[in-house]
Structure formats: structure tokens, C-alpha cells
């Protein structure tokens, strides 16, 4: 329990943070975010193309597979800035699909798919099921057969599935959890149902696996499946934490702006301690969460420490964003109760992220098992 994670920040992280800050600010003003909510695709393909050209889709992919050869630590500042601008799109799901291939794919699979992801083919993961278990090894969907595998089961919260060229699904196969590649071209009609999710900036789908067959070559390395699932779980939490942290910052800034503009009883409402002091609490909690985020990013690849730092970071981010966004609605008063106020966008996102890949109580329990 000596090392719970430390702050470290590379030059590459600093550069990416700076570039991503201006890119996301310019490409994703809130009017655009709101327009994309009403759009069925939900993100801007031109912006996606730009990201590919910036090399962002390959940040954590080795150069041998067409990537930049850095790690998730360098993806974090990019995702943080996306979260800050409520930016929509398949960046995170594609990055995680790449991680799944890296952690669990065969050499052939990596060579075949990673370059395509780095070039801009969206991809996603299909992990969750109806019983709502955050433990990714608790899989009930199945892949049965020999040379050809017949899939069955339901997968929930498959983000960006309609856009993705590739879905990597967890299945139970041969007495153990496994991962399987599904090309979305091969999906039968009706396999995808768009879900109505709390965070309207996202596109999420229910995927019915029944009736889908894939050649057994699309099974990821079964010997690495458990390790890959564990890696995916932590990587998903790391990137969710990055999104949440950026989102918290924006939520606080947005609220502070209002407190500095709106008057009641003849005074700017930000002069009232009833609003000022909880805003300070939100801010301090945000700074704590951000410190955890960059500790998790820096320590992510260290055995043990990475898991500890990541689970702590997700817990801290959940606390920070939930509190900041809850108070954002309240402190905007009547306006906060309207759809026009952005406060609910942050609050909805907070609920989304808290609910995916383990909430604070879940991570604390896992941490207690590791540390106490």
C-alpha cells in the first residue's frame, strides 16, 4: 500500500492537452452539441476525420500497427478535453476496441484491425448484459461451435454500434469468458436497437447476437481473455474518468459564469455565501478528482498501482461531477429547471458515467479488497 499512484506528466501529454483544448473548444461549442443531440448519427463525421488526421485514433496503438506508439496516459488529456466540451463521437469506444485487440488479440487480428482503427474506422465493445453486472467475466451470451461460431444473447449499451465497423463482444465459450470480433456488415437486420439513454449526447444500442455466426478465427486469443477483460474494465474507467473530469470543469465554469451574471435582490448571486461556498466545495472536489485522474494516467501501466489509482480516480470523479452538476441545476434557479440550461446536460452525463463500468460504491469495495 506504499504506492497509490503519483503525478507525472510527459511532454507528449502536455502537447496533446494543449492541442485538444483548442480543437475541442472550437469544434464542439454547446450549440453544436445540442444540434447533434437532435441528429440521429449524433456526431460530426468531418470532425472525426480531422481527429484521424491528427493521429488521435492511433495514440495508444504501437507504430508497428500504424499508430503513434504512445499509451493511454496520452489519450487521457484528449478525452478530458472532449468531456469538457461534451463532444460526441466514437473516439472512446474505438480507443477501447483497440485496447481490447492489443490486450487480447492474436497477431493476425492486431495486424488486420489496428491499422484500420488508427486510420479512422470506428469500433466498439459489447460487454454489458441485462443482469447489470459490472464484472465483465460474468458473461451469459454464448459462442458455440467449431470452425463457425454461433452467437446468442443480448448486449446492452453498445456505444456507437450503428457507426462502428467492428464490434468486439464478450461471450461465454468453451467454459470460459472470451472475446469475439463481429464485423458490423455482417449484422442481420434488427440486430441493433437504439437505446434511449440518460445522456442524450451519446448513441447507444442493444445488440442481439442471436443468429450471428462468425468464423472461429474471429475469436480473440482465449488464453488472454480474462486479462483482456480486466484491462478493458480499467481502461474504460480511466477514459470515463477523463471525460468526467473535463465535464466537471466545464460544469463549474458554466455555473460560475451564471453566478457572476445573474442578480437577485439587487446583488450578483455569486456574492451570496449560500452559493459561493458550495461552489468552492465543488471546485475543490474537482481539483482533487483531476489530481487523481493524472495520477491514474501516469500510473496506469504499473501492475497493481494502476488499478488502485484508476478505481480511486473514477470514485473521485463520480463524487465531483455528481455534486457539481446537482448544484449547477439548483444554482441556476428557475433557468436550471429548463431544457435550455446546460446544467442538465452535465447532470445526465454524470448519471451515465456513474452507471457504467462500476459506480463509486463498487470501486470502493474493490479497493477495500485490495488495500484493507
Amino acid at each position: 500500500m506504499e504506492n497509490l499512484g503519483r503525478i507525472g506528466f510527459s511532454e507528449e501529454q502536455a502537447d496533446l492537452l494543449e492541442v485538444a483544448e483548442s480543437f475541442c473548444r472550437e469544434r464542439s461549442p454547446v450549440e453544436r452539441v445540442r444540434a447533434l443531440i437532435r441528429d440521429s448519427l449524433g456526431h460530426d463525421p468531418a470532425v472525426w476525420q480531422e481527429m484521424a488526421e491528427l493521429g488521435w485514433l492511433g495514440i495508444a496503438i504501437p507504430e508497428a500497427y500504424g499508430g503513434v506508439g504512445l499509451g493511454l496516459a496520452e489519450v487521457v488529456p484528449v478525452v478530458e478535453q472532449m468531456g469538457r466540451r461534451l463532444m460526441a463521437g466514437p473516439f472512446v469506444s474505438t480507443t477501447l476496441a483497440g485496447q481490447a485487440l492489443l490486450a487480447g488479440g492474436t497477431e493476425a487480428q492486431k495486424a488486420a484491425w489496428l491499422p484500420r482503427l488508427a486510420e479512422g474506422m470506428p469500433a466498439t465493445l459489447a460487454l454489458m448484459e441485462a443482469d447489470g453486472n459490472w464484472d465483465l467475466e460474468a458473461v451469459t451470451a454464448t459462442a458455440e461451435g467449431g470452425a463457425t461460431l454461433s452467437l446468442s444473447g443480448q448486449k446492452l449499451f453498445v456505444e456507437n454500434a450503428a457507426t462502428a465497423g467492428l464490434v468486439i463482444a464478450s461471450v461465454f465459450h468453451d467454459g470460459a469468458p472470451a472475446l469475439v470480433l463481429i464485423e458490423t456488415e455482417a449484422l442481420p437486420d434488427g440486430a441493433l436497437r437504439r437505446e434511449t439513454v440518460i445522456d442524450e449526447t451519446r448513441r447507444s444500442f442493444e445488440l442481439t447476437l442471436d443468429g450471428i455466426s462468425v468464423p472461429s478465427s474471429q475469436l480473440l486469443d482465449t488464453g488472454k481473455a480474462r486479462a483482456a477483460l480486466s484491462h478493458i474494465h480499467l481502461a474504460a474507467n480511466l477514459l470515463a474518468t477523463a471525460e468526467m473530469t473535463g465535464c466537471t470543469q466545464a460544469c463549474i465554469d458554466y455555473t460560475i459564469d451564471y453566478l457572476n451574471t445573474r442578480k437577485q435582490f439587487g446583488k450578483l448571486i455569486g456574492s451570496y455565501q449560500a452559493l459561493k461556498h458550495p461552489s468552492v466545495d465543488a471546485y475543490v472536489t474537482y481539483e482533487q478528482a483531476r489530481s487523481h485522474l493524472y495520477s491514474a494516467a501516469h500510473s496506469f501501466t504499473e501492475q497493481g498501482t494502476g488499478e488502485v489509482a484508476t478505481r480511486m480516480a473514477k470514485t473521485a470523479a463520480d463524487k465531483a461531477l455528481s455534486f457539481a452538476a446537482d448544484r449547477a441545476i439548483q444554482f441556476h434557479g428557475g433557468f436550471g429547471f429548463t431544457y435550455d440550461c446546460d446544467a442538465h446536460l452535465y447532470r445526465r452525463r454524470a448519471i451515465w458515467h456513474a452507471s457504467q463500468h462500476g459506480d463509486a460504491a463498487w470501486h470502493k469495495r474493490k479497493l477495500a479488497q485490495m488495500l484493507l
Partner: protein
Amino acid sequence: MSEVNEKELAEFAAEADAWFAENVDPDPGFMLPLTFMEVGTDQQFDFLRQWQNKVWEAGYLGAAWPREYGGGGLPEAFQRAATKAMRKHNGPIMLNAIGLNWTGPLLLDIGSEAHKAKYLKGILSAEDIWCQGFSEPEHGSDLGNAQTRAVREGEEYVVNGSKIWTTQGNYAKYMILLARTDPDAPRKYDGLSFFLAPMQIPGVETHPIRKLTGEYGFTQTFFTDARIPADGLIGAEGEGWKVAMRTLEYERGARGGQPGGYVITERDAFDVLDLARRMMRGGEPLMEDPVMQDRLMDFIIEIQANRLCQERQKVAPLTSDRPMGLALSSKLMSTELVRRLNEFAVTLTGPRAGYYVGDENAVDEGIWARGYLNAFSATIGGGTSQIQHNIIGEHVLGLPKS
């Protein structure tokens, strides 16, 4: 009102129980709003208007209001029995909340005979829907600073300005309206007057407001040279602030006079308990998690506390130190609890908290997240929780003004 005849009361209670058992439709085929502020569709409105009318006709709403105004003329205990039966059988809410709980008690208290005769029965029957026009877009919590103007011209006032958060504004026949009749009064509060104003007249327009839930339920009301009759003035000209404050006391529960029923059905600890029992976490029943149990107990203890505080209000020797304390605290206590309880319930649903109203996989059709978001209407409306803290601090604890 007469003395309570225990035997008659028991019979009345039994009849009410049977009536609600018979008449509450457990599934009207669409989602009913949980509060009067969430009436978002005509289908909901029509259903609830008929339901209120039916309850009133059966004698289970306004049972303690005077007979001559459409009430039952019975002691309060009878209405309490009816309301209890309504609650027991999960009856839908009473629709005409502003009329029932604000306008009605106010008129019974200080209205003229003509006002009572004209308005009370329509309030009970839900024929005349009421709304409230206090808040303005620029002065949310600062009611005393209302700028909507009402200028007297003969037997009318000409109204110009805008009100916001008008619940059921698009359905209402009348509004209780706070408007400025004297912009030059030395104290801003002295320039206000209080009106019973018609809504369905030229110069009054309502625009629906989209709520943070994505749904509707409130309007913004615009007045453009709207002419309202001068006999709708309640209290003298310039006394509007006093009347409005009195009205808010009905809302805050600091005065009686309500006709019964309820206008909000809250999910309580038992609903949350039921939810927790149905959830799993990591393959185990969530209810077996001691951390969850501990948090649930906090909520159950707090809910029980609020219930007991309501009871204790009636016991004078137990409220003598700060006689208005419980009454003035009840809005803060209950609305903040509802917000936190719904927030907690959302977390209980685990991964499926990602779903929202409208998804087939949403737990309980998504009511928990929606309920949480809607809960802000009560922590913001009718004086924000921050304002409530000021009120309690100043009027109960005697602290100086901020």
C-alpha cells in the same frame, strides 16, 4: 363545524375506503404524472380533471369546506379519512393544485362573499383550473421585485409584463397574480397588489417551457394590455405582498385550510426499499450489501423523522420553544429529501441508470431519474432551498438578515 361523531366518522372512512378501492384504476394505459407540475399532455390533463371531479362528487374532496361553496360541511377528520383512503389505494393526484391549496384557503380566510360564491365550487370540481403568477423571469427568488404592471382604468386594471413557472398555465381559467400597481412606492413591497385574474382573455398568452427532463408542464405567461376586472383585487391596492406571503404560507404548510387530497405522490422509502430488493450487484442481491443497508436506513430514519415532525406540530407543549419552527422548516426538509432520495434510487439501479424514460430496459420506466430531475422544481420553486434557509434562520432562529 360540528363535533366529531366517532361512529359516523368510522362509517365514512369505510365508505371512502371502499370507494377508492373500487374507483382507482391501477393502469390507465399511460403514464400519469406524479405531481401537479408534471402534467405534460392533454391525455394526462383530461384524465386527472375527470378524476378530481369524480372524487369531489363522491364527497372525498373538500369534505370539510362549507356546504354553500361545494364542500361537505363536515369536520376535518372526515376529510383526513378520505385522503388516507385515497393514499392507501394509490389514487392519482388532485389536478387543480393551485386552486385547491392556495386560492381556496386564501378565499376562505380573507375572500369576500362574492369571491367565495364565484370561485370555490369550480376549484373543487376542477371545472376552473387555477395557476399562479408570482415569479418573473428576471427576479426568480426576489418576488418583492416583481415588475409586471397593473394600471387601474375605471373598473379594470391593464396588465403588462410576464410571469414564469406558470404550472398548467395553458389550461388555467384563472391566475392568482402579483402585479405592481404603484411603481413609485418608497418600499418596493408596498407597490404590489394581488389579483384573481382571468387567463382566457385577449392580451394573455402562454408559451410552454421545456423542462430539464425533456418534458413540459409549465408555461411562461405574457400580458400585453390585458384587461382584468378590478373586483378581482384581494386585499387593498398596495397590500399584495402581504397577501402573497400569506399564500406562500399555505404552500409551506404553515397554515391549514386545504380541502384534502394530495397534489404530489412521492416515492417514499418503501418504494426505494422495494426497488433495492429487486436489484442485483455483482451477481448478489443488492439488499444484502451492508453499505446499501446503512444508507437505506439513513433514508428511512429521515423519512420517519419528517413524518413525525408533521405529527408533532399538533402537540403544543412540544413546539413551544420555537412555535413556527416545524411549519416553516417542512418545505425545506421534505423537498431536499425527495431530491436526495431519488438521486440515491438512481444509483441503486446500477448500470441500468444509463437508461431513461422511454427505453424498454429502463428500471420502473425511468421514473427514478425523471423523479430526481423533477425534484428540483420543489427545491427551486416556491422559494429555493437557499431562500428557505434564510427564512428559517431569520424567522425561526432570529438571526439577522443576510
